[in-house]
């Protein structure tokens, strides 16, 4: 993309806080602040961190029977998603691949959807074309921030008592600093926390109010990536894409029982077949035994030396204190405890298949 990267309503605040700005999916975003990725990561696990995720696509769906209509393009049970609840899901294509992953919330008189920044250009027309009689409106005038960590409830709750009453995957509308915000108890770090949609004019004041709390520090995309990897959460474009099925991606938990049995979504044939017979490959956690991080595209070999797959996400895990990775291994491999080799710069480095997540998830159920 040659277009000038876009700026979020919090751009000036990032610069003021010393954020190192990079182009991410067409947006000028902070990859880290002076604290550094490791410090920000640990701060989020121990206290609370504020992330700007305004680059993600926020979409309002209005009309009748939205949940049922979403079921035609998603394998999730959105028809039965209750008001005030949010649910992780994905759009599938006719081949059973994942077009994007998303969070759908039932906001009562409408549905609220958040999609990936890099896929919003695809997802908005996809919804508009396939949700008959539903008005699909992309929101450009609201920021989206995440407050994540064991102290997130204190940070947000001090300004917004209603936030304390939410449990994991619940959503509501409430005032923060006199501004009406949508507050959802969810995130992308494995920690308790919230994502909060704020009118753009008020976003900086609300963000500053969160940061005024002693336990809350700003964190950038770098920490966001290492946090989600330790939490075993997929990144669209790395771990999942148009060709990978949800079963391959170990996301069958995100397809509800009725939908698994009844099908009726794009690619159901492949997905139901893989549910019954297993998929050709499977996304697993991989823990290198040495200190060398295994990055995306590193080859995975079985103990006998045959290629069995590839790393899709890999980095240093600050909480784990060593390298962590996820990758696909061929059918017949991937049992927890299996020893494999990772070919890093031509040398075989020993690693082990481990269960995900690397760090215990800490949600408020």
């Amino acid at each position, binding site marked *: 993309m040659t277009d000038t990267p876009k700026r979020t309503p919090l751009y000036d605040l990032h610069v003021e806080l010393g954020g190192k700005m990079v182009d991410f999916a067409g947006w000028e975003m902070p990859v880290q602040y002076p604290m*550094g*990725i490791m410090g920000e990561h640990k701060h989020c696990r121990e206290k609370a961190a504020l992330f700007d995720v305004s680059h993600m696509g926020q979409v309002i769906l209005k009309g009748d029977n939205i949940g049922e209509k979403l079921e035609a393009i998603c394998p999730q049970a959105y028809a039965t998603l209750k008001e005030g609840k949010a649910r992780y899901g994905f759009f599938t294509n006719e081949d059973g691949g994942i077009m994007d992953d998303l969070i759908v919330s039932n906001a009562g008189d409408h549905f609220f959807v958040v999609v990936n920044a890099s896929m919003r250009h695809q997802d908005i027309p996809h919804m508009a074309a396939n949700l008959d009689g539903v008005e699909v409106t992309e929101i450009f005038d609201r920021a989206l921030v995440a407050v994540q960590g064991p102290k997130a409830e204190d940070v947000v709750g001090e300004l917004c008592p209603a936030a304390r009453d939410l449990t994991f995957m619940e959503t509501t509308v409430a005032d923060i600093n006199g501004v009406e915000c949508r507050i959802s108890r969810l995130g992308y770090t494995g920690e308790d926390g919230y994502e909060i949609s704020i009118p753009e004019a008020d976003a900086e004041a609300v963000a500053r109010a969160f940061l005024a709390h002693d336990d809350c520090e700003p964190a950038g995309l770098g920490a966001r990536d290492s946090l989600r990897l330790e939490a075993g959460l997929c990144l669209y474009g790395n771990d999942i894409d148009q060709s990978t099925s949800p079963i391959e991606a170990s996301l069958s938990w995100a397809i509800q029982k009725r939908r698994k049995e009844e099908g009726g979504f794009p690619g159901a044939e492949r997905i139901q077949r893989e549910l019954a017979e297993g998929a050709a490959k499977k996304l697993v956690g991989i823990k290198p035994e040495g200190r060398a991080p295994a990055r995306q595209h590193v080859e995975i070999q079985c103990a006998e030396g045959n290629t069995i797959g590839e790393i899709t996400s890999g980095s240093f895990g*600050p909480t784990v204190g060593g390298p962590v990775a996820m990758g696909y291994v061929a059918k017949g491999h991937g049992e927890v405890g299996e020893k494999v080799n990772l070919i890093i710069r031509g040398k075989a480095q020993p690693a082990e298949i481990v269960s995900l997540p690397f760090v215990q998830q800490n949600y408020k159920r």
Partner: protein
Amino acid sequence: MTTYYSEEHEWITVEGDIATIGITQHAADQLGEIVFVEQREAGDEFEKGDEIGVIESVKAASEIYAPVDGEVVEANGALEDTPGALNENPEGDAWIYKVKLADAAQLEDLMDLDGYKALIG
């Protein structure tokens, strides 16, 4: 003792025919928090421009390119267990290699401190 600098953000000091090579503070700052260093072993020979190691930060891997021809005399083993020292003191204790220079004349192609300061602005 004169210190030379390369465009790849390395520094070199020379005593006799043995040179010490490391990365500059500027390079370390740009890389971010360093979590792993892969080094060649003593006895390995290399030419100017060869990849002679890799430095990994939380985010990415960066190659170390040889600023001169030579042979590894010693790799700084302390970096194996404390790679973060490269962020703390890259122009001191956290040197990367002691090398035997093959051609001391190559030093003349490198920059002095003023030249390097001009490069990094």
